[in-house]
């Protein structure tokens, strides 16, 4: 059978477009490398495009994890209005980019994003004198979310969401171990609210309520939910799970002492990411356990010296950690939190370490799966405020539009939007 040249071109084009996930006549690319003027808003626009029912291709490891989308006028307008850089691509250019990304010899891949995740942020209704980096990131990027808290979790509302975020939370029932602030109104209100909620749900102690909350969240993840936690939302989550058979809360917080055999009764099998840790039983110590290595010593506590490096994963074979580590830099500025970094020897085998502080045996960013869902833990409080203190003003992300640290948070927001594929590994 003979084909006329015109027909051959047409068939080739058709084949190419079939191979190319999203190469339409006119596309645009939102570069996420150094040329991008506002990385954080780029996530928000991508989310907005997905909300409108238009699919987006996430080009992993291509120009910092760029987004490819149709060059519809309203999308262009939104990108401009939100200050996000983009480049127009003709049909052939887009096909070339896709072909480039899909080359076998390059560590790049295309992930089709097709549906926006329903996002819940676990946070109290009460205003507390510190800020939540994820709420800041989502608000700045204009990604919609709902705030849920203990009542919602206990009432089974997590089932309405695909993605759950935890930030500066204390699941051990020790109110963040802010004992020195105990006479301040916000602390009193926090304690009162927690006690009332515990009683409402039939628990005598806040630690019992919080354990029920973490067990519920654990089930949510087991059933396919995505969990992202930062700062003390990470280690206290696992500490609470490990302490499900004992009392590790000093009397200053719950009125009765810890169990004397508390250490022996910790159940590390019940945790997500950490093992063999030892909780701190000192009510006055602003530390929950030795999972956290704490801030660098005073003489080394210098933002200019503190950094961590992101691991590079195979975009084609390990798409999930690859998605979570998309960035325009390989080295990210360090930042302190109540939980600053995880001790490497406390991380369970099988957990994927995605970033660590070089030469310090400290893990900054990790990922794992449980049941049908996944969890991601990111240490530190605010990626753009080296040492965020109580009553500090919130970080103005207009001044940190290209923040690599905040990008890691937003990678987690888009990750649940990815089309489910069979795991290659």
């Amino acid at each position, binding site marked *: 059978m003979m084909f006329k040249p015109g027909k051959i071109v047409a068939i080739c084009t058709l084949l190419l477009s079939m191979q190319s996930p999203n190469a339409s006549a006119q596309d645009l690319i939102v570069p996420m490398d150094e040329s991008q003027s506002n990385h954080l808003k780029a996530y928000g626009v991508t989310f907005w495009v997905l909300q409108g029912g238009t699919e987006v291709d996430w080009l992993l490891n291509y120009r910092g994890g760029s987004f490819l989308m149709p060059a519809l006028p309203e999308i262009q307008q939104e990108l401009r209005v939100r200050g996000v850089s983009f480049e127009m691509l003709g049909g052939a250019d887009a096909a070339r980019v896709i072909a480039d990304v899909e080359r076998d010899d390059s560590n790049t891949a295309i992930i089709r994003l097709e549906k926006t995740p329903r996002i819940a942020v676990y946070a109290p209704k009460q205003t507390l004198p510190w800020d939540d980096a994820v709420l800041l990131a989502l608000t700045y990027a204009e990604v919609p979310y709902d705030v849920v808290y203990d009542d919602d979790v206990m009432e089974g509302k997590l089932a309405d969401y695909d993605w759950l975020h935890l930030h500066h939370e204390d699941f051990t029932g020790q109110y963040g171990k802010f004992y020195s602030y105990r006479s301040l109104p916000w602390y*009193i209100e926090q304690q009162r609210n927690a006690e009332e909620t515990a009683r409402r749900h039939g628990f005598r102690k806040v630690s019992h309520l919080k354990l029920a909350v973490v067990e519920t969240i654990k089930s949510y993840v087991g059933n396919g939910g995505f969990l992202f936690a930062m700062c003390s939302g990470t280690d206290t989550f696992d500490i609470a799970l490990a302490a499900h058979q004992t009392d590790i809360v000093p009397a200053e917080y719950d009125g009765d002492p810890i169990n004397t055999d508390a250490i022996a009764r910790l159940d590390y099998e019940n945790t997500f990411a950490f093992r063999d840790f030892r909780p701190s039983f000192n009510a006055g110590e602003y530390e929950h356990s030795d999972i956290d290595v704490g801030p660098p010593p005073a003489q080394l506590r210098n933002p200019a010296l503190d950094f961590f490096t992101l691991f590079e994963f195979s975009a084609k074979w390990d798409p999930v950690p690859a998605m979570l580590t998309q960035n325009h830099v390989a080295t990210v500025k360090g930042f302190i939190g109540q939980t600053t970094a995880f001790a490497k020897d406390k991380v369970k085998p099988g957990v994927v370490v995605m970033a660590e502080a070089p030469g310090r045996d400290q893990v900054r960013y990790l990922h794992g799966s449980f049941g049908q869902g996944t969890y991601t833990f990111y240490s530190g409080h605010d990626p753009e405020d080296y040492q965020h203190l109580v009553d500090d003003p919130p970080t103005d992300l207009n001044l940190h539009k290209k923040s690599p640290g905040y990008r890691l948070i937003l990678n987690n927001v888009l990750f649940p939007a990815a089309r489910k594929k069979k795991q290659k590994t």
Partner: protein
Amino acid sequence: MKLTTGKHNIKASFWPNIGDTVRLALLILLSITLATTTLAQQSDADMTARFQLADSYLRSGQYDRAIPLLQDLYRADPASQVFFVKLKQGFENTKRYEEAIALVDSRIELEGPTAVLLAEKGRFYFLDDQEDRALLTWNRAVDTDALRTGTYLVVYNSMVQSRLYVEAIALLESGREAMGNETLFRKELGRLYGLTSQPELAMSEYLGLIEADPRQLGVVKSRVAQFSSRLTQVQKSIDVVEDAVRDNPLNRQFRELLAWFYLEADMYAEALDVNRAIDRMEKEEGRVLFGFASRALSADEYDVALSAYEEILERYPDAVVTPEALRGKGETFETWANKSAGLGGRRSESDAIQKYRKASEAYIDFLARYPGNGNVPYVMLKLAGIEADVFDEPDSARVRLTRIIERYPNHPASDNASFQIGRMHLLAGELNEAFLSFSRLEQNLRIGELAEDARFELARIHFYRGDFESSQSLVEALKENTSTDIANNAIELKLLLIENKGPDSLNTPLTKFASARLLERQRKYLEALSVSNDILAEYANHQIADDTRYLRAGALMELGRKEEAVQAYEEIPLMHPQSFLVDRSLFSAAEIYEIHFESIEKAIEMYNRIVIEHPGSLLVSEARTRIRLLRGDDV
């Protein structure tokens, strides 16, 4: 028998006239007593040592070692309070609540059922998850002496330790009833009601406390601040305090508390009423009102501040604070006018003018009524500023400023007055006089913000005169000091000078443009427009044309010719697409469409052009925000 040694002599004197048998018996008895005492002393030392050991075990958390030792000690001496307390602590720390309860019971057997012991027993029941028995035991504790305040306080402490606030409230209320005294436990109940989110009841208690002892106001404020972190709670507290004030109109502390609550809730108008009442009631002659007015002014609550100042002026014309109130009134109007003027739009412009007029009236009144007041130079300076900048009355402003310099040469306001006089000369076209004023000031001061301002004015005067070299050398120095506000203006002037010279040796177009700038500054917009038109007619292709068009558009706007102004701004991107004024022109056009023509679509179009065509412009961020606000986004 004869005793010869001194020792025996002593014995002899000690045992006078006693028979040998008796003497022997006594000796044996003494020996036994001494031996017993020694044994007892040895036993005490042993117990002390064992107790110290047990205590150190307890402190180091080695309860398994501490408790058996303490049990032994307590068995040996059940009356000992210290053994009891430490053993109880050991049981509690190891959550051996049943044994703790048994221990307390043993003590009760010894001492009887005291309120302290029963309260403690109740607490252990609670810790042991036996809430019902805990409550029964606490009731028993109360029954030991239900007519003694201390009994209730002991049980209250146990309940609060167990964080049983509701039950503690019931306890103290029952105590009041039993003793027939409604004024008992006010502090405790206030705290408990606060902790249980019942601000109304908490306030009732605290008001009672203040009524009994007015010195408690500070304590109450600090207590209330702990639970009033939410506006709803503040509102509820306000309702209660309002009632209290109504019922006790002569209680100053109640009113002070109410005013404090109003300020916490940003209810300045209501706070004014309360402060007014306190002022009258306490015959403060406006002092309370004046302090409040200053606070309201700082919080930008202009109308409330004005009401307070006016109240002082009307009610206390001869009070100590009256002159300052009059000055405050002027300052409030002036600050308010500045804010209104900054909002843009015709309505806000006329509104601002009215406020400036009232500020001016207040200042004039101040100067007439209080000529000897120490703040006269400042008030004169402020008045002159309004006269010159708002009402276009340079002559009267100049007279006033000259008076400051002549009458108060050493006052800090005098330097500012000199600067303003320079400006007056400039506005009147008296460039030589202006130059002289600024030169003197600059030489007198040498350093500081005012000196820098004077230096920049000198550079501008050189520019207006067409002496571009001198102007440039001055702005070169000024732009180096980037910490000053005028550095940006200096850079802009420098660029204008560098880019727009020629085409002839006299730099005619730039010279004409400089004169147009001076006319614009002198608010001679019609003349500035005329000169701009001349420049454009003669030098349409000169690089100064874009600046001229921009100046022309601004003059048209000032003359109220808004349609022509917007057209002029829109011409700039067409005629001078490479000009650095393009984005500013688009922005100005967009603002006219948005604010004056209320044409959202056209405004968005203009702002969009900045975003699309000038992505590097400093105005892009603001343009984006305006677009989003105009299209109704929640930003």
